Each structure stands twice: as C-alpha cells, then as structure tokens.
C-alpha cells in the first residue's frame, strides 16, 4: 500500500503526467456530461429517472460500430455513425414514449421507474441478440489518430476533440434553453406543467420532444465513447451509475450542475486511478456522500417541495 503511495507521488510530481491526467479528466468528464445532460433533461421535465439511459448509451456505441464496420471504415464513417446513433436512439425513444410511457405519467413514480427498468432489460437483451457478447473496438476517426503538440507536452487529438465537443454541447444547450422559445417552454415545463397546459401549450409534445432529445444525447454519448472504450455488453450498467452520481452531485434537472458534476467525476476517476488503483469508484461515492451531507439536493438543485 505504501509502495503504491510512493509510486503515485512520484507520478504526480511529473508535470507532463500531471498535464496528461488533467486533460484525461476533462475529456472523460465532457463525455460523461453529454450522456448525463440527457438524463437530467428528462428528469427535470418528465420527472422520470430513466434507468434505460445507460442501455441507450450502449446501443448508441453499437450503432456507431456497425456504421463504421458497414462502411468499411471510410473517411467520415465515424461521424456518420454518431449521427446514426442519434437518429436510431431518437426514433426508439419516440416509439417508447408515444407507445407506452405516455400512459404512465399520471401513475406513481414507482411505476414509471419500473417501466424504464423493463426497457433496460429488453433493450439490453435486444442488443445481445443483434451484436452478441463479443467486444468491439472502434478506431479513432480519420485524421484524429495523432496528437496535438502543446509545446511542453503532446496530447492525443481525439480526447482533445471530446473536450471541445462537450463544451460546445454545454454552451449550445444553455443557449437553446435560455434564449429560444422552445427552451423557454421546456424550462416552463420543469416549473409547472399544469400552468403550461392551461396556457394552451401542447405539453405532451414537449414531453415527447424532451424524451427524444435526451435519449439521442445518450446515443451520441455512446457513439463518441466508442473509440475510447471496448464496446461490449455490460457497459450500460456502469454508465448509468456514473450518470446518477453526476445528477445527484449537480442537482436534479440542472444543466450546469451536471456539467460540474461530470467534471468532478472525471477528475476523481482519473486521479483516483493513480492514487488508489481499483478504488476510484469508491472515491466517487465519498465525493457524493460529502456533498449530500452538505446539500442533499445537489450543487444547483433546489430543496424538494413537499407533497400536500
């Protein structure tokens, strides 16, 4: 144990390594953010914790792999895979929301929760039927296999691009939510759906739209993660827990909360791997617990309103 500590200390005093790990943390955090923001959006508007979000993420990664493989790894095939993942997951979400979930809105939370759990079981097994239990690797997209020279250190292009994409998604979502008409409607739906309906707004359509966008984000997140990880069954379970930790840290339905939560989890995971190898997940929980003791409703959340 002490030996590990000494080794970790010497690694952490190496500036190049420190920079590398710093960038890795942001890159991982941004990838997690893209996924978690879809979950938190659905949670904020529909008040449903979508357990199937992890399964959607996994499905997105598989769709991306299939697209890349089908096109023989041609230039641009990866990005087509990302789009395909968004479209497939959006379409799946549309069918699930319109066909089933919509009939459960008036019911207890337990019913809705278990509904999404049923979707986890079904989507997970359908993925197994289509893609089997093999592990797949998606190569880095064309032109992004190299590294960018920062002068004092090099950093691989693809994870660097992930940082940029995450930031673009965050700013884009923020602009869309705060500056556009649809964004205002979505924010109004998180506040008071009855009032929104009374004002003549088509609330069911808002719900469908949010569920589709949120799920498409899970698909995009999965496709973007595909070159970083091995695409395999079981990748859905870990990601959903990570998303929950992010949402709990950030606060229910908060965009910037999930942004900070995702970054925090990225740093804890990457530096935790160095300091306490194998136990980084436990560190993430300690982070979450500490926060819960201080602010049970998360960094950017609000105290829950009691039912009357």
């Amino acid at each position, binding site marked *: 144990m002490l030996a590990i500590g000494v080794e970790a200390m010497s690694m952490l005093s190496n500036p190049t390594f420190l920079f590398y790990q710093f960038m890795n943390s942001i890159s991982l955090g941004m990838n997690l953010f893209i996924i978690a923001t879809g979950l938190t959006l659905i949670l904020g508007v529909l008040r449903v914790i979508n357990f199937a979000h992890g399964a959607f993420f996994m499905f997105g990664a598989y769709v991306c792999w299939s697209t890349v493989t089908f096109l023989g790894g041609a230039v641009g095939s990866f990005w087509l895979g990302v789009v395909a993942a968004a479209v497939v997951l959006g379409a799946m979400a549309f069918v699930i929301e319109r066909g089933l979930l919509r009939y459960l809105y008036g019911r207890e939370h337990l019913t809705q929760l278990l509904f999404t759990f*049923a979707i986890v079981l*079904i989507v997970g097994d359908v993925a197994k039927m289509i893609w089997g239990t093999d592990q797949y690797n998606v190569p880095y997209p064309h032109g992004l296999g190299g590294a960018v020279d920062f002068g004092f250190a090099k950093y691989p292009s693809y994870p660097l691009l992930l940082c940029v994409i995450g930031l673009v998604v965050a700013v884009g979502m923020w602009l869309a939510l705060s500056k556009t008409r649809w964004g205002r409607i979505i924010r109004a739906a998180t506040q008071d759906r009855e009032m929104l309906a009374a004002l003549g707004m088509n609330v069911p359509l808002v719900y469908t739209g949010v569920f589709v966008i949120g799920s498409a984000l899970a698909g995009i997140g999965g496709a973007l993660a595909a070159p970083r990880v091995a695409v395999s069954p079981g990748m859905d379970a870990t990601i959903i827990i990570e998303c929950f930790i992010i949402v709990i840290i950030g606060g229910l339905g908060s965009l910037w909360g999930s942004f900070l939560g995702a970054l925090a989890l990225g740093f804890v995971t990457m530096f935790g791997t160095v300091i306490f190898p194998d136990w980084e997940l436990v560190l993430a929980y300690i982070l979450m617990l500490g926060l819960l003791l201080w602010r049970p409703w998360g960094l950017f959340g609000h105290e*829950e309103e009691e039912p009357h």
Partner: protein
Amino acid sequence: MQTGYKTTFWISCAIVLLLLLVPTLGSKYLIDLTTEILIYALFALSLNVLIGYSGNISFGHAAYFAIGGYSCAILLTTYELPLIISMPAAIILSGLAAAFVGYFCVKLTDIYFAMLTLAFGMLVWAVAFKWRAVTGGDDGFVGVNVPAFIDNRYGFFYFTLFVVTVSAALLWLICHSAFGRTLVAVRENRVRAGFVGVNTTRLRHTAFVVAGTFAGIAGSLFAMYNRGVYVESAFWTESGQVLIMALLGGLYSFFGPALGAAVLYTLQVGINQYTEYWPVVLGIILLIILMFLPDGIIGLAQKLRSQFSRKA
C-alpha cells in the same frame, strides 16, 4: 379486522403445514425449488416493509442480501465460526450496513431516494467485485463451510422453512404493530404524519434498517444453500428483480410479495430451460404488470372477487 387476522393466521399455518410435507413427495427438484422460493419470498417480504409499508422505492435492496450472504459465508468459512455465531453476526452486519446507508438515504425522498439507494447498492457490488482477497472478486466466494446438520437437502429445507417462517411472523408483527401503522400513515401523507408529531425521518430510517436486516437473513440462507456467494447477488438488476417480485404479488398486501416471488422464480426456472433471454421475458412481464395489473396478483384477485360478489 380481528376475524381477518384470524383467517390470515390459519391460512398461514395451513401453508406452513403443506410446506412441511413437500419432502415427502420425494422429488429432489421440488425440494430445491421450494427452498429457493422460500429464500426469495423472505427477500421480497423484507423489501415490502420499505416499499409497501413506507412508500420508499429502494433500488439497492440486493446490497443487504449480498452483505448478509458474504458475511455469513466469510464468518463460517474464513474464520471457521459456528453457525450460531456466524448467522446472527451476518444479520447484525446487514442491519448495521442498512443503518449507515439509510442515514443518508432517508434525508431524501421519492426519486432521489431511489437513485441514492441504487448508487449505494452498486457501491456494495463494486467493493465485492474489487476486494478479491476477502470476497473472491468476480470468481465469487466458493466452498462455504456449512454445518453438518444442514449439509443435506432435507436438513437445509427444514432449516430454511423454520428461519423463513419465524422471520415472516416477525415481519408480520412489525408491520401490524403501531410502528407499521404509522409507516402507512407516513406513506400516505408524509407532511400530515409530521404535523401530528411523527418523526418521519427516523421512522423511515427504522423501516430501512428492518428491511435490510431481514434481507440479510435471506442472503445468509442463500449463501449456505449455494455453498457460495457471487458478486451478481449485489448487482442492481437483482434489486430490480426482487422489486418486480414484490410488485407482481402486490405491494399493498403483506403476503403479496411472497406470492410474487414464488410465481416469478418458478417462471424464471421454467423459461431458462428454453431460452437464455430471460431478461427480455422479465421485461415483458414487467410491462404487462405495469400496464394492466397495477396492484399485482392479489389486487387482481380482490378485484375479481368484488366483481363476482356484486353480480351475485
């Protein structure tokens, strides 16, 4: 109400008597199946204290089942302690773990509570998975040292039946005590219960500990039955499965979850013979319950009965 209790008592006695006779049928397969169902029934009953009686949706209940299982197995095997010490110690450890986790969880309610219990459940899974030296990691903890008197099919069956019956009776008493009644009041309206002077947070915490403790009993039985504990026992799908058992039987009745466990487990064993895709089947069963049978089998039976008596 009192006559209702009496009927329940006699029906329960009849069921226990019938179960006592199961080994005389001579089918080893049936004895094993009944033992497994009894263990799952206790697991589902314990969860119902939390969900049916106090309205807290736990998605991490498998954690206490696994803690009970691992502690019992480790105490029996690694430390070679006798059963009379190992099992109570395992049960107390599950209760303590539930007390610790519950302390954080009951600060939150509803969907936040569900997320947090799930996160803690997966923490237990992660620890069991990584702490190879103690738990055996993903190979599982195998070769549990089971005392001689239950080291055979018949002995273990009667031992399980005894433990489950006593536990179910205790749970029944707890749920029908003043404590259980107050839990229902909290479930129905937390704010009002608070106004009449109930410390709702402490009450929910107690329910959490009771549920975790009894799940630990089920878990320790399961570990001895299988002569091993596997990390899958702590996985979140296991928590989901026991929740489905409770829901299938009927959450708002005391024995519903036990019935649900029997039905679902029998289905699982049956379907596993034909296909490896049990999760899809489970998902579809769950969708059907949610869409068409919101109050489970017991609720359906009650509805049919009331319709029948209206016609008569």
